[in-house]
């Protein structure tokens, strides 16, 4: 087990998951000294009836919801946040509930900055102070969630706001809020969340606390993905949503890895979604790490990916390789529904080069020169990384 000489770990978010968990919200708010939340969400969540489920769950609580602001769009803008802040103040709200994917959570976090600091100017927050007393903030993940809801991050107008305190106080994961989605729409956020959890525990700086969370996240996703895609039993969908929510905590506690940096750059350059890029790159990044760095892919990865029985049956020296193979298996198994190579996405070669170039500097020290391009090239053809030390 790897313990670095020094590390920090923090998770502010309390997870409340399962049957009738929404009904706890009024009690939970009151125990944080709040009585009147503003619900911030998007049109899709309203149309799918999610907001109504929350309002029904409020039944018998005797409390009032300040307003339901449903103006969040896929790209979160400062104007949206400001509108929400005006509504929050006009109604005398004291807490925030976000329903939906990351854009809703981003808006909620920025809203919290504004109303807790009694300001209208987001741009004043250059770097966020440590000891902000923010309003109680509850996230309700839906099938649109990416894991960023539980993270330390908010992105408004492309600008990043980051602080431990932006993590929500509670993530309420209620099966009723996890509506059925198309297969690709189920797979992609899950694989991206998994990619981030995998990356966190294949870093040199990995520590036992974040590893525990990462293992839980990876195992929940690996065990439930197939079932959630084919049929979607309540249990599997809930398991998947838990895995995704936990990945946000893991991601917040790990340095940015080469895989997510590449996915981000590739998404920006090609217009493909971050989820898709991350999913395609996941096994290839891992394969490259395994073959080119000694420490980072530990045999322990096999445990959450393949389960305790397969892990224990494998020879110790083989576990690293088997772990990577198992990840390949999972991603390739989804090829019926999503592309799994960059070739299928028709990405021209010069973009691979410029993408690699963009991240090369930050990671060359760790993974050697040319590493980034090697990952992209193997992901292009869907082949194993050639060369490297094994």
């Amino acid at each position, binding site marked *: 087990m790897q313990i670095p000489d020094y590390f920090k770990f923090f998770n502010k978010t309390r997870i409340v998951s*399962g*049957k*009738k968990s929404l*009904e*706890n919200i*009024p*009690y939970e708010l009151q125990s944080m000294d709040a009585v009147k939340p503003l619900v911030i969400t998007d049109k899709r969540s309203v149309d799918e009836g999610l907001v109504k489920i929350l*309002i*029904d*769950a*409020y*039944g*018998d*609580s*005797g*409390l*009032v*919801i*300040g*307003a*339901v*602001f449903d*103006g969040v769009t896929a790209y979160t803008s400062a104007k949206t946040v400001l*509108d929400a802040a*005006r*509504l929050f103040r*006009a*109604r005398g709200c004291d807490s925030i509930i976000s329903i939906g994917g990351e854009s809703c959570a981003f808006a909620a976090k920025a809203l919290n900055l504004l109303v807790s600091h009694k300001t209208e100017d987001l741009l004043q927050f250059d770097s966020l102070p440590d000891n902000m007393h923010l309003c109680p903030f509850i996230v309700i993940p839906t099938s649109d969630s990416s894991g960023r809801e539980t993270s330390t991050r908010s992105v408004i107008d492309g600008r990043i706001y980051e602080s431990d305190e932006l993590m929500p106080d509670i993530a309420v994961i209620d099966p009723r809020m996890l509506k059925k989605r198309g297969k690709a729409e189920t797979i992609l956020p899950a694989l991206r969340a998994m990619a981030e959890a995998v990356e966190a525990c294949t870093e040199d700086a990995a520590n036992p606390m974040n590893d525990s969370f990462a293992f839980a996240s990876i195992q929940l996703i690996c065990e439930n993905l197939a079932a959630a895609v084919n049929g979607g039993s309540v249990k599997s969908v809930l398991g998947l949503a838990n895995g995704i929510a936990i990945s946000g905590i893991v991601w917040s506690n790990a340095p940015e890895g080469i895989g997510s940096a590449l996915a981000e750059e590739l998404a920006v350059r090609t217009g493909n979604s971050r989820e898709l890029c991350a999913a395609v790159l996941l096994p290839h990044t891992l394969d490259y790490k395994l073959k080119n760095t000694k420490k980072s892919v530990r045999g322990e990865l096999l445990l959450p990916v393949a389960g305790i029985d397969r892990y224990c049956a494998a020879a110790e020296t083989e576990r690293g390789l088997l772990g990577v193979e198992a990840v390949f298996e999972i991603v390739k198994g989804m090829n019926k529904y999503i592309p799994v190579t960059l070739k299928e996405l028709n990405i021209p070669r010069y973009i691979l080069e410029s993408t690699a170039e963009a991240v090369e500097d930050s990671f060359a020290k760790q993974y050697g020169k040319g590493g980034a391009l090697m990952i992209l090239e193997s992901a292009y053809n869907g082949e194993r990384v050639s060369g490297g030390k094994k």
Partner: protein
Amino acid sequence: MNINKYPEIKSGGKLIKKIYVAVMLWIVGRAIQAASRVDREVKEEFGRLSDDFMMHLHVLPSGPGMIVGKDKNGKVKYMGWNPKGKKITLDMKVKNIEGAMLMFTFQESTCVASANNRLAVSGNVPDTMAFIRILNIVETYLLPKIITSFAVKRYPKWSQMSPMRKYAGRVLVYVRTFTF
């Protein structure tokens, strides 16, 4: 932005569920009183509790609830729903009506409900434990085995009990619960 487009939302009611839980609480309260007269174990449990024992089991934020406690003569009594003027020594709150529904439709036993953090208890721990044991015994009297076996960890083997407790005890609890 027109603020009036986003109205305030008052929470609705859940009258039927509240009525159901109120009825169940009434039955359980009466049954505890009855069992305290008939069942040796329940009698002993109450005997160990202090003379001012007064338990309020209720649903947040606005009920229903029930109170069971000892009267001036030390007799165990179901004391209705109104805590006004009573000195509660054990306050067991169910966090919301849905939690109470899970408990009183026997989908979650008292222990599972505690494990699921559905209850918030103020009072001393030994009293709470004693009361949970009493509740379990009363449930074995009130309900058919198939339901109670969901509500308790292990169903008492009736063969280990005297025939008196097995049949007569049950009848007596029923009679005393539903008559005045």
